[in-house]
């Protein structure tokens, strides 16, 4: 039988992921007159991605007058916010662009002002040296950004999962994707590609044991990182894990609102313990708060509670009224639990882990980018929670916009035909994928069982307490799982999407274990705690751990943080410092 036909698309720019970063990258590219196609797993651009249901805080510089509200002031504090592991060049670009991108998003119709004051309501949290967070009703934040993309006539391939990049001589020229409702496969040829598919979730165990109960969206599974890694891109900071505090049983948002409004954390003896761990108390960085709670549990001081009872009634009322803004179902959870957070302490747990930005701003884990958002692969850009500089919706918006402008500049003086896609290769890739749907195989493995094993391995040996032996054990297990990937079974097209996600998750877990093994120190507490190397080693370990694909598996290297990560890009420094040392 001849292979089924492909849908073919030629475009200037292909964006993988239509969330915050993807849309914000598409906008300047469209404004520059480029043809843009976005592939997105969701069906409705205005609501897809992490923030489809709304957001409540936006981190930004506004240049409103005081010194703390300037890029220079915030930048000065970035090394301490990130424990020195940060790409200052890219962060500087992002922070400087913040005011401009904020105004641009406002021009789309997003209202950042608090109707109570008809002004910006700005709060301090997570160790930041100023009241940088605008608290706002961001229910329609994504809607306005998505609408902008549609207004500018961006093409959106919905319910479409990108699975493979096409790269020749370190230059990206296309991708393969499939629609998981129709089964149609698409080959896209593009002059530039933006990776914006978010962070890595479904990676470790959570308190409820419900696999898709996760703080961040369980449908972001590190596909961009896995695809780009396989295509030869350089990744960094993959050793760091992120976790947060959640009401026990429901891995959900809300920590920012709690701490910025003044909630306390107390242990089983009623002790307000945060000051033991950080002079900023509950206002410490997320990574520090999570670590303190982990430690209290390990000391036998659990359960830990979030306590709001001391707060004045108007603050409690405001908290209650805005409870659903960040996570729509939070009121229903409390209601079904018969729990009133205004009068009772709420038992908290740490959430499952993700690979995102390890609880600190600006130190993202994932695809290394230069100051234009371009990765180590020519023509391949990245932004949002899959990139090495990130920071929630603001980080995704700003770096997304930077990448979109970077794409426009990159394509300005480049013309000429794109390479032809080798359809024999494309057919082979599709055939391997479709083989997961074959039911008549001797041995098959459900993606759920496969993922459960990945999660158990990560929680036990690659999570918040690491040592050499455990990490090696994890690597053995994760590689044994890789060998079984051809056995993975999908019952339908939807399942075929999940099978691809499971593979991405496992791939990212392996990279995390490899990179953790290399960093023989502890950095940012439980974001990377090596029990066998409990100290933070400065200046020796003021280095990024990087990883690329080698002939025999991941090739790990390091780069001093005095350099930008781009110093390790072969395309900028042929034969240069990549993976030196």
């Amino acid at each position: 039988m001849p292979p089924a036909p492909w849908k073919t698309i030629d475009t200037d720019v292909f964006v993988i992921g239509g969330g915050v970063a993807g849309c914000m990258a598409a906008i300047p590219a469209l404004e520059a007159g480029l043809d843009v196609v976005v592939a997105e797993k969701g069906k409705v651009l205005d609501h897809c991605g992490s923030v489809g249901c709304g957001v409540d805080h936006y981190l930004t510089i506004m240049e409103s007058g005081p010194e703390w509200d300037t890029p220079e002031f915030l930048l000065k504090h970035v090394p301490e916010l990130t424990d020195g592991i940060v790409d200052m060049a890219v962060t500087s670009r992002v922070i400087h662009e913040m005011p401009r991108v904020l105004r641009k998003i406002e021009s789309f119709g997003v209202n950042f002002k608090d109707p109570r004051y008809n002004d910006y309501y700005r709060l301090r949290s997570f160790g930041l040296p100023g009241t940088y967070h605008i608290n706002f009703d961001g229910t329609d934040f994504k809607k306005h950004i998505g609408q902008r993309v549609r207004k500018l006539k961006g093409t959106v391939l919905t319910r479409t999962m990108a699975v493979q990049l096409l790269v020749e001589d370190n230059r990206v020229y296309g991708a393969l994707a499939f629609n998981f409702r129709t089964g149609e496969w698409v080959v896209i040829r593009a002059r530039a590609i933006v990776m914006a598919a978010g962070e890595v979730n479904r990676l470790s165990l959570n308190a409820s044991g419900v696999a898709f109960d996760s703080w961040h969206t369980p449908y972001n599974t590190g596909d961009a990182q896995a695809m780009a890694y396989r295509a030869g891109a350089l990744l960094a900071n993959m050793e760091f894990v992120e976790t947060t505090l959640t009401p026990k049983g429901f891995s959900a948002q809300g920590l920012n609102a709690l701490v910025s409004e003044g909630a306390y954390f107390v242990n089983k003896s009623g002790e307000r313990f945060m000051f033991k761990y950080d002079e900023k108390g509950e206002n410490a960085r997320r990574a520090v708060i999570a670590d303190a709670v982990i430690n209290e549990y390990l000391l036998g001081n659990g359960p830990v509670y979030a306590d709001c009872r001391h707060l004045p009634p108007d603050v409690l009322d405001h908290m209650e009224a805005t409870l659903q803004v960040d996570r729509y179902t939070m009121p229903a959870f409390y209601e079904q639990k018969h729990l009133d957070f205004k009068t009772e302490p709420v038992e908290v747990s740490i959430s499952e882990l993700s690979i995102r930005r390890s609880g600190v701003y600006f130190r993202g884990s994932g695809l290394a980018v230069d100051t234009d958002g371009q990765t180590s692969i020519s023509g391949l850009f990245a932004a949002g929670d899959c990139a090495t500089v990130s920071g929630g919706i603001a980080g995704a918006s700003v770096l997304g916009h930077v990448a979109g402008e970077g794409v426009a500049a990159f394509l300005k003086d480049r013309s000429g035909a794109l390479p032809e896609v080798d359809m024999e290769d494309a057919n082979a890739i599709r055939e391997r994928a479709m083989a997961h749907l074959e039911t008549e195989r001797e041995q098959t493995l459900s993606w759920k069982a496969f993922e459960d094993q990945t999660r158990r391995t990560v929680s036990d040996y690659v999570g918040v307490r690491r040592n050499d032996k455990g990490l090696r054990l994890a690597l053995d297990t994760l590689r044994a799982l890789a060998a079984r990937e051809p056995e993975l079974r999908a019952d339908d097209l939807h399942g075929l999407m999940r099978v691809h996600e499971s593979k991405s998750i496992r791939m990212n877990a392996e990279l995390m274990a490899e990179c953790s093994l290399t960093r023989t120190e502890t950095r940012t507490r439980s974001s990377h705690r090596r029990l066998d190397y409990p100290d933070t080693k400065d200046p020796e370990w003021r280095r990024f751990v990087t990883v690329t694909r080698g002939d025999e598996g991941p090739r790990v290297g390091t780069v001093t943080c005095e350099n930008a990560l781009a110093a390790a890009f072969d395309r900028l420094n042929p034969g240069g410092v990549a993976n030196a040392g």
Partner: protein
Amino acid sequence: MPAEAKPVHNPIRIDPEVCVKCNLCDWICPGDLIYKEEDNRETLPVVEYPDECWYCGLCQSICPVDAITIIFPKQMIQCKTDVTTLLGKVVE
């Protein structure tokens, strides 16, 4: 496959009396869980993959007639897990 045959908790309840069969919940669910026959005003939406729900509530928030209720499973509402079991094993 007995493991997968055991009853799965249904994360959302769709009131068949109230639902106007508009398709919005199918379109909005970020996990591709809800399937509703397009262009058929007779059929109800079906939750095809109940164990893959994020409990995000988008379906509920978008439903024009409030036909959807989120129901958290017991493991979430009355979570009994010892948090220390999430904190890793130390291999000596």
